[in-house]
């Protein structure tokens, strides 16, 4: 094994990452992925010393470590693909090809990822994308999007149907692309970078901002105190409960179950209003900052939170207990949108999607950060891989997170005085920050140059892995079940498109 092993949020010298020949690099990472406890958290290319450097990061869940290796290649090179052997690499290699202009000899489907502004081939435009089609008199196509029926983000879904049944779904994204990764390099002011992190996905502000500040602090050799770690963990867990509750409302809505939609929907309000009490913003924008905070979590907030839960929890339980016993609800959720354990393993799915198929991907237990190392988190797992499993995981994670939150707010650490420090990253460094957001694993990683400026900033939202899960889950389902399948994953468009 010729890779460097590091921990979540550990800074290393970039030049200490082994540089292998491409063949060795490929073989090594493919062998690693044969082990069930390993999955690829990030694989990217960037311009380095006039050539292209490929960096592959594999997380080992049982060793709590991350194995990083690299290789050098050139633009217009045509390489054998990892994907031909391990599908989990498919999106990473498509991205490398799209951004760097590298070709692959045997990639099964090198379709564009997001048509970024800095793509290697400017001639390709999103409006002309040639969708996969099947020439048959018995099949028809249904195109949905990019503008959808609800108040949601844009993306295009192209179904090939046999009557009412979905034979194949192709998803094309990129409409939301704002150039976040390049802007991280261009915006020199730290506050601007934090705001970019807050804008990666506005439904996962705590998740992506925690990933950013933890990474930034690691690059600067700064260790956040217990108080900041506690704040960040509280924010992540409130965000998890709030979104999970909202998702149960949305699932109810998609099966036309009005009481669930109204009650779960309104139960989300006091949770996000707690963010407003805390930091003045319902989605926690402005809350998380590197090496300090404007909004320490106080005993008074803890009291307000615990008091709110006194009525919130009985209301939630009452609604859930009716919801999951109704035949009309269960008929729509059970055995709909099924994924198998083998499928999620193959595509490298993470988060709720993986856990609903008994695949235990959860950074809170495998690579704990902030307060999670003290929580001894046990992932909520289900086996059936259907919409109902994903709903159940939400319900049980809400219960579990409420337990963590009670523990955290009842035992707030002593606060240290902070003056938001302007830290400077160490030159020539590399670090990875993993966070288990409500949706799943977020991975940010960065390399700094000889002046300590960012050379590359990579963001991976869990959706990057999981959109493929949706495409597979709807096969052989009725097209009318697509909305509820989609909602059960609740993936991010902007987090994917960046």
């Amino acid at each position: 094994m010729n890779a460097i092993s590091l921990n979540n949020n550990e800074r290393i010298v970039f030049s200490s990452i082994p540089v292998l020949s491409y063949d060795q690099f490929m073989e090594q990472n493919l062998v690693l992925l044969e082990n069930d406890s390993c999955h690829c958290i990030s694989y990217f290319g960037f311009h380095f010393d006039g050539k292209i450097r490929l960096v592959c990061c594999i997380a080992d869940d049982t060793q709590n470590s991350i194995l990083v290796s690299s290789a050098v290649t050139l633009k217009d090179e045509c390489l054998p693909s990892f994907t031909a052997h391990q599908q989990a690499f498919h999106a990473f290699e498509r991205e490398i090809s799209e951004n760097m202009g590298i070709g692959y000899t045997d990639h099964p489907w090198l379709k564009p990822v997001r048509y970024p502004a800095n793509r290697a081939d400017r001639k390709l435009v999103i409006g002309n994308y040639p969708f996969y089609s099947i020439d048959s008199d018995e099949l028809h196509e249904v195109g949905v999007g990019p503008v959808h029926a609800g108040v949601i983000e844009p993306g295009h879904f192209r179904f090939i149907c046999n009557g009412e049944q979905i034979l194949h779904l192709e998803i094309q994204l990129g409409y939301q692309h704002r150039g976040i990764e390049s802007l991280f390099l261009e915006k020199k002011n730290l506050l601007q970078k934090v705001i970019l992190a807050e804008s990666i996905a506005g439904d996962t502000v705590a998740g992506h901002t925690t990933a950013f500040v933890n990474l930034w602090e690691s690059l600067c050799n700064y260790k956040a105190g217990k108080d900041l770690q506690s704040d960040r963990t509280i924010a992540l867990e409130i965000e998890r409960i709030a979104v999970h509750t909202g998702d149960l409302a949305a699932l109810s809505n998609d099966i036309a179950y009005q009481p669930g939609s109204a009650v779960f929907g309104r139960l989300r309000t006091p949770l996000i209003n707690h963010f407003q009490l805390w930091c003045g913003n319902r989605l926690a924008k402005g809350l998380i900052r590197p090496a300090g905070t404007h909004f320490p979590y106080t005993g008074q907030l803890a009291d307000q939170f615990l008091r709110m839960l006194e009525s919130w929890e009985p209301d939630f339980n009452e609604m859930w207990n009716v919801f999951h016993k109704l035949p009309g609800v269960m008929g729509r959720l059970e055995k709909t949108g099924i994924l198998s354990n083998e499928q999620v393993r193959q595509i490298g799915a993470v988060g709720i999607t993986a856990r609903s198929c008994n695949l235990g991907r959860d950074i809170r237990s495998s690579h704990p950060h902030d307060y999670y190392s003290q929580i001894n988190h046990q992932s909520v797992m289900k086996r059936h891989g259907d919409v109902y499993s994903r709903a159940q995981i939400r319900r049980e994670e809400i219960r579990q997170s409420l337990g963590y939150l009670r523990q955290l707010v009842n035992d707030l650490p002593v606060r240290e005085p902070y003056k938001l420090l302007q830290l400077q990253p160490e030159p020539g460094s590399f670090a990875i920050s993993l966070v288990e957001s409500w949706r799943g694993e977020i991975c940010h990683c960065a390399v700094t140059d000889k002046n300590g400026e960012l050379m590359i900033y990579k963001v991976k939202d869990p959706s990057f892995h999981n959109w493929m899960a949706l495409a597979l889950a709807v096969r052989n389902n009725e097209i009318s079940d697509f909305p509820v399948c989609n909602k059960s994953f609740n993936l991010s468009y902007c987090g994917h498109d960046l």
Partner: protein
Amino acid sequence: MFDHLKIIIHQGKQYIPDVTTAVVPGIFRGRPVISSEISDWKALAEICPTGAITSAPVSIDLGRCLFCGECAFLFPDRIRFTTDYKLACNVREDLIILSGEDKPVELRPEFIRKEISGLYGRSLKLRQVSAGGDNSCELELNACGNVNFDMGRFGIEFVASPRHADGIVITGPVTENMAGPLQICYDAVPEPRLIILAGTDAISGGIFDGAPALNRSFLSKYQIDLYVPGNPVHPLTFINGVLELIKKRKKND
């Protein structure tokens, strides 16, 4: 059946009775009040992530402001964000809050298109187009229709098709990849059609202003009927803004 009745009884009334006078809980960064005694505006301009602060006289442009509050942390006794959530207006310049001023942001009736109150005063159907929005404004626009804010009681609703809509609500800084679909969606709305910009990203591009992945040319082609600032927009900001847009001119005609 009985279980549902129990839930209905336990839930009680959840709606906000009067959305025009409701008080937002806790701290909220709404309309800022800036003291005219600021001397060190350079430090302010430097700290602001989007260049929303300019000098002579010192002012904050709510169309660029991300409500991060950093300026108020720098000069806590000179800049104060009030909980006034009524931030919407129909003239872009009115989003610029000057130092020494403490007056509400309002729509100017003379610039509201004549046909609006007659046609849409009691029923306004809107099509939402997210064009690079980060899903925060989208979540808040959805929240406008939930049982708490219940925007539907005023006849204001989001609809599934542009063909059924009276106007579009744009969120996000308008990406190049969404420029085409946005135009197609707008063209599909029957005339007369409104354009509402929801959120700082839509109004100015926000933190993304000037990024090569954007294409904001659509916005310079048409009259904008309503600007609703926020990061994201608060449901009360949106509902009050739209209510003024469809009601105000009538009052004054």
